[in-house]
C-alpha cells in the first residue's frame, strides 16, 4: 500500500512497561499499555483517538513520536521507519512532528518568557538566527491570535486558553507537518475549548497539518476528526470515518461509549436508550484473554475468551475487532 498520500503508518505498535519485583528486581510482568495498534494517517487528515483513561491512547501518541521507544512494531513517517533511526537522524525527523500537551501550565517552563519558550526549538534545531527567531516568534504569536507584545511575559500571567495557544505556537515553530494533540482542551473551560478547537482547525487548513487528536471527549473528537479510532485497553477496537463511526458504531464498546455521552438536549436525553457498562476497566497489567472487552461486554460469548477477534475491514474503510460486528450491519 505505497500510497504517497500517507504521512504516517503505524504497524502493530506495542509498548509494554516492565513490572519489576522481588529480591533481584526481576521483570515479573508488564503493563501492556499499547498492545498492537495499527493505523494510517493521510496528509492533512485528522485521526481522532478516543478511549477512556488508561486505554493507552496517550502512550500511543508518545510512542509514535518516539518519546517512548516502542517495544515492537514500526512507525513509518514520511517514508522513514522511526523505530530504527536514532540520534541526529531522529532529531531531524522530530522537527516535523510536534506535540501539544493536555496541561498547558505544566508543559511550559515557568522561568522562561513566552518568547523564549517559543523560540527555544528554533535555536535548538539551529533553524534560525536570533533576529530571524524574534521575527518568527512575532509571527507565531499572531498566528495563534495572541498579541506579539506578550512575548516578554511569563506563562503564569496567562489564562489557561492563552497558555494552550502558547503551547500551540511552540509546536508550530518548526513548521511541522504532523502534530499529536494529546487532550489539548480537556483542562480548559467550556467557553475556551471552542476557541482552541477552532484555532486548531484554522491552522490545519492554512498549513495542511496532519493531526493525531487524542481525547476522551467524544463530542470534540467527532467535531474535529476525519476518521476516528476507538481504543480499549491497549488496542484499537474500531476505526472508521467520523460519521460512519458515530452513526453506525459496530463494536459494543463504541456503542456503549457513544450512548454514555450526554447530549445537551433534554428531549433527546429523556428518550435515549443508554447502554450502561458494568464494572471498571481491567488492569492493563493483566488484561482478559481473547477479546479485551469481553468482561464488560453485553454480548460476550465463550469464544470471546478463547481468541482475540481480528481487526477486520467489515465495510470499506470501517475496521472493527469483534466477532459479532456483523449483527449490527
Amino acid at each position, binding site marked *: 500500500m505505497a500510497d504517497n498520500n500517507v504521512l504516517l503508518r503505524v504497524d502493530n505498535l506495542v509498548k509494554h512497561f516492565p513490572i519489576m519485583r522481588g529480591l533481584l528486581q526481576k521483570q515479573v510482568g508488564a503493563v501492556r499499555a499499547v498492545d498492537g495498534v495499527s493505523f494510517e494517517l493521510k496528509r492533512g487528515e485528522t485521526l481522532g483517538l478516543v478511549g477512556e483513561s488508561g486505554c493507552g491512547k496517550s502512550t500511543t501518541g508518545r510512542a509514535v513520536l518516539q518519546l517512548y521507544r516502542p517495544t515492537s512494531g514500526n512507525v513509518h513517517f514520511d517514508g522513514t521507519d522511526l523505530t530504527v533511526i536514532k540520534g541526529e537522524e531522529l532529531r531531524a525527523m522530530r522537527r516535523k512532528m510536534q506535540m501539544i500537551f493536555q496541561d498547558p501550565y505544566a508543559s511550559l517552563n515557568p522561568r522562561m518568557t513566552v518568547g523564549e519558550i517559543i523560540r527555544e526549538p528554533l535555536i535548538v534545531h539551529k533553524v534560525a538566527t536570533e533576529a530571524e527567531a524574534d521575527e518568527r516568534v512575532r509571527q507565531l504569536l499572531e498566528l495563534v491570535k495572541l498579541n506579539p507584545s506578550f512575548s516578554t511575559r511569563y506563562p503564569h500571567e496567562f489564562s489557561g486558553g492563552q497558555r494552550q495557544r502558547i503551547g500551540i505556537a511552540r509546536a508550530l515553530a518548526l513548521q511541522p507537518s504532523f502534530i499529536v494533540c494529546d487532550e489539548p482542551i480537556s483542562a480548559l473551560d467550556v467557553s475556551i475549548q471552542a476557541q482552541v478547537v477552532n484555532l486548531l482547525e484554522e491552522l490545519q487548513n492554512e498549513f495542511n497539518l496532519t493531526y493525531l487528536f487524542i481525547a476522551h471527549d467524544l463530542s470534540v473528537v467527532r467535531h474535529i476528526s476525519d476518521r476516528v479510532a476507538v481504543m480499549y485497553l491497549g488496542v484499537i477496537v474500531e476505526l472508521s470515518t467520523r460519521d460512519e463511526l458515530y452513526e453506525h458504531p459496530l463494536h459494543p464498546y463504541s456503542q456503549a461509549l457513544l450512548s454514555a455521552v450526554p*447530549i445537551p438536549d433534554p428531549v433527546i436525553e429523556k428518550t435515549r436508550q443508554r447502554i450502561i*457498562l458494568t464494572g471498571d476497566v481491567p488492569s492493563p497489567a493483566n488484561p482478559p484473554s481473547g477479546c479485551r472487552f469481553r468482561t464488560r461486554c453485553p454480548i460476550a460469548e465463550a469464544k470471546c475468551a478463547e481468541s482475540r477477534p481480528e481487526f477486520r475491514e467489515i465495510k470499506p474503510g470501517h475496521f472493527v475487532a469483534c466477532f459479532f460486528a456483523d449483527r449490527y450491519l
Partner: protein
Amino acid sequence: MPDLLLDVKGLETTFKTPDGIVHAVNGVSFGLKEGETLGVVGESGCGKSVTMLSVLGLIPSPPGKVKEGTAHFFGRDLLKMTSAEIRQIRGAQIGMVFQDPMTSLNPVLTIGRQLEEPLVVHLGMTRAQARNRAAELLAMVGIPNAKDRLSDYPHQFSGGMRQRVMISMALACSPQLLIADEPTTALDVTIQAQITDLVKRLRSELGMAIIWITHDLGVVAGFAQRVIVMYGGFIIEDSIVNELYVNPTHPYTIGLLGSLPRVDASGHETLTSIEGSPPLLYEKPTHCPFAPRCKWAMERCWKENPPLETVAPDHRVACWVDVKTGRAR
C-alpha cells in the same frame, strides 16, 4: 413559595487573597422544592461551588467570608446557625458529594470507618450497627462484596467506585437534600453514565432533592428539572430544563451551548466560541459581568447590572438585551 426546601436569598461571599478581595458570589437567590433536581451550570470560578459551600458553612474562613444573605432550610436560616447546630444538618439532612473522588476520601482511613462516621454521629448507632448499615449502603450503590470491602482503603477502589462510596456516604442518613458538586467531572464517560444512572435510581427510591453542580450542560439535560446558569458570581439564567435548552436566552447560555460540539451532530460547522476569558472578580461588578465578552453588549450593559427577570413561565434571565432582536428588552 412557602413549600421551599431550601431558600437562598441575596447570598454574597468573598475571599481574601494576596492579590485582593475576590467577590466570588454576588447576591445569589434561588429556591429548591422538595424532591426537585436543580442543575447549576457554569465555568470554573463562576461561583457555583462557593454558593453551595457557603450555604453549608463549609467555606474555609479565613480567607472566605459569607457577607450577606439568608439560606433557609426547612424554615431555619443555615447561615445564622451555630457551628453545633449546622453540624446536625450537615451529613444528616443535607448530604454532599464532591468533584474529585480521588481526594475527597481520607486516604488513611478505611472506607468502613468513613462510612460509619455519619451513622454514629447523626443516628446514634453503635459501631457494630453502623458497620452493618455501612455494608448495606455500599451494596445499595452497587459495590460488589460490600461487607468485605469495608476494611479496604480508598486507594483500593477505582474512581467510579470511590464516587459510589461518596454517594453512599452522603446518603447514609437519608438526607432531604443531596448537593453534588461536579460529581462526574473527573470520571470517564462510561463511569459518568453509571453514576448518573445510579443517582437517578436513588432519587426515585429515596425521593431526595438534588442540587447538581456541573460545567457540562449535557450532563444535567436529561436529569434536572430546573437549571440555573451562573456567571461571574451571579445567576444569569434560571429556567426549567426544557425551556432552557430549547430557548436559551442569555447570550452566555447561548454561547455556551453553541461552543459545545454535539456527539449527535454530523455537521462540521465552526463552533461559536465565546471570545475572551471569564472575569477575575477582584471588583464587585457594577455592570453586567458578561458585557466584556458579549457581542450584543449595549451601553446600558456597561452601566447597570441587569436583574433576573421573568421572560417566560419558569424562565428568568438577567440581561438587558433581547438577543432575538438585538435590541433592549
